[in-house]
């Protein structure tokens, strides 16, 4: 078999051309924005990695352009990643590059503190590092065919409820605290609260365990279940997208507070802090409100009072003794009273 040398070298030449083309392509602009028509922002000097829980995308989509328009935010790009709050916290602990985190609840940030990823005093100031929040709502199909108005209505036999698993989702914990607080009168009568949850967390009502608030919403929108427990902001945003749903704010529900923290191992401390501080400015608070999240700035909240009705009774985590008391007592994987009840449906 006589293989002429030219064939082999012509193959090599072709491979060389291909490699050069690839190298050329590699020089072309890339970036984190995924909007068609936008050219790569190669003038962004810094990119901040935001690791967030699963549902605040509508908010951040408004906040980031607002931030980059400010003098502090010039030349900064933000690359967000969304997922179940507990799972995202684990990822940051495991080493995923993060500069700033926005998780669903305080205990998930405390996990980062324990792993030396966030400073101990992250929420020491007056704002408690909570730039926005929401309330727990019951989401139903448009027209509310099953006429769900109260927590008791959820106990109708055969009613299928979609709520995520507290093992990975922050939304899940808020969802279960709401009826618990309502029924136990703010934790005063724990037995009554657990009694209700015992009736709720049965295979008659709970048929799936989505791992995040976002996944729960997806399952509900895809036809699973009669009722979804979720954040008010999730309901508002999906209604604005025209999905055939509506939401009910029960007379007694729970105040959701979503914290933000700068990651101490970040190499862009100043920029991350600038972003964090921006979130509390009136401009940013207005953007959160426009995106369906309850702002913490009282004057902005007053302006948007129409969008965010006040329930008869709004329980807060402080009523239950704060997360440091409530989280281990209720949600500890082995000993938490609510966690143990959830095990029957997981």
């Amino acid at each position, binding site marked *: *078999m006589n*293989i002429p040398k030219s*064939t*082999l070298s012509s*193959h090599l030449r072709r491979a060389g051309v291909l*490699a050069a083309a*690839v190298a050329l*392509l*590699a020089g*072309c*602009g*890339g*970036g*984190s*924005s*995924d*909007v*068609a*028509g*936008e*050219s*790569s*922002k190669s003038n962004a000097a810094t*990119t901040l*990695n935001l690791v967030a829980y699963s549902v605040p*995308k509508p908010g951040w989509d408004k906040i980031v352009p607002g931030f980059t328009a400010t003098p502090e935010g010039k030349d900064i790009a933000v*690359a*967000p*990643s969304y997922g179940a709050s507990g799972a995202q916290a684990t*990822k940051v602990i*495991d*080493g*995923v*590059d993060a500069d700033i985190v926005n998780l669903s609840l305080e205990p998930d940030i405390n996990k980062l503190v324990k792993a030396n990823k966030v400073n101990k005093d992250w929420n020491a100031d007056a704002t408690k590092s909570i730039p926005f929040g929401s309330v727990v709502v019951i989401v139903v199909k448009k027209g509310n065919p099953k006429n769900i108005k109260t927590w008791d209505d959820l106990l109708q036999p055969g009613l299928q409820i979609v709520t995520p698993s507290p093992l990975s989702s922050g939304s899940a914990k808020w969802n279960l605290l709401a009826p618990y607080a309502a029924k136990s009168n703010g934790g005063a009568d724990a037995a009554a609260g657990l009694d209700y949850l015992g009736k709720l967390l049965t295979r008659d009502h709970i048929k799936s365990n989505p791992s995040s608030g*976002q996944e729960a919403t997806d399952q509900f929108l895809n036809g699973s279940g009669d009722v979804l427990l979720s954040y008010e902001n999730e309901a508002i945003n999906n209604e604005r997208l025209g999905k055939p749903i509506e939401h009910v704010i029960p007379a007694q529900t729970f105040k959701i507070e979503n914290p933000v923290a700068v990651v101490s191992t970040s190499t862009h401390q100043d920029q991350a802090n600038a972003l964090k501080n921006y979130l509390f400015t009136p401009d940013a608070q207005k953007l959160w409100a426009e995106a369906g999240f309850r702002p913490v700035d009282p004057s902005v909240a007053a302006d948007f009072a129409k969008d965010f009705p006040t329930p008869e009774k709004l329980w807060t985590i402080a009523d239950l003794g704060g997360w440091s008391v409530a989280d281990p007592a209720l949600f500890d994987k082995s000993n938490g009273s609510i966690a143990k009840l959830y095990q029957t449906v997981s």
Partner: protein
Amino acid sequence: MNQSKVIRYLFRYVALLYLLLLLIIPVGLILWRTFEPGIGAFFASIGTPAAISALQLSLLVVAIVVPLNVLFGVPTALVLARNKFRGKNLLQAAIDLPFAVSPVVVGVALILLWGSAGLFGFVENGLGVKIIFAFPAIVLASIFVTVPFVIREVEPVLHELGTDQEEAAATLGSSWWQTFWRITLPSIRWGLTYGIVLTVARTLGEFGAVLMVSSNLPGKSQTLTLLVSNRHAAGQEYGAYAIATLLMTVAVLVLVVQVILDARRVGAAK
């Protein structure tokens, strides 16, 4: 066996109907939905910064995985085709393992080996070399699933060829490198090419394993397959279709190369 006309047509059309419903129509539907809004929309969608970054990342992974697989795969194939040694069956079985491992399990295995809490956790904790949730993990996952391709395509060719030519060259005083470059390599070129093509296609198409070990940050650690998944999750169906079409083009190219190589193989055998 002479089939009656009725049977022949029955078989033919049932088979074609099956392929139509399972293969042709679904793929065609994606192409239709991708190009129906016009080719401009397609290019805009695959030209976003995130998409370009994903393309660059995927190509970079290919650029590392292919040479490594060739560098280590060809000698491995040589050893398997030419030599008998103890444990050869074990090595053969080990090379086939990636076929039997679920992509998720690949991801789990890598996390349990190289993660900070893993068996080789000292690499990240002690030496500060991040593997999981960083670029090396994507490369390792891709190599895991592509190990068999080059080896399994080159080995049978080597086996069929025999060593006559190489031995003749050796007796004429050729060094091992000359023999390899001028005799062995050209004779395995079609098998090697096909193995490389399969490796490229599989690397670009790997999803499950990469999903587990990548931090999935747009613009940084998102491959093309992760981008498809992300766009779908974000409700950007059209965007997902566009990247899917891009990946399908690669798959079709693989098929085309396959047909060409087969024709050459048949031609060379004549």
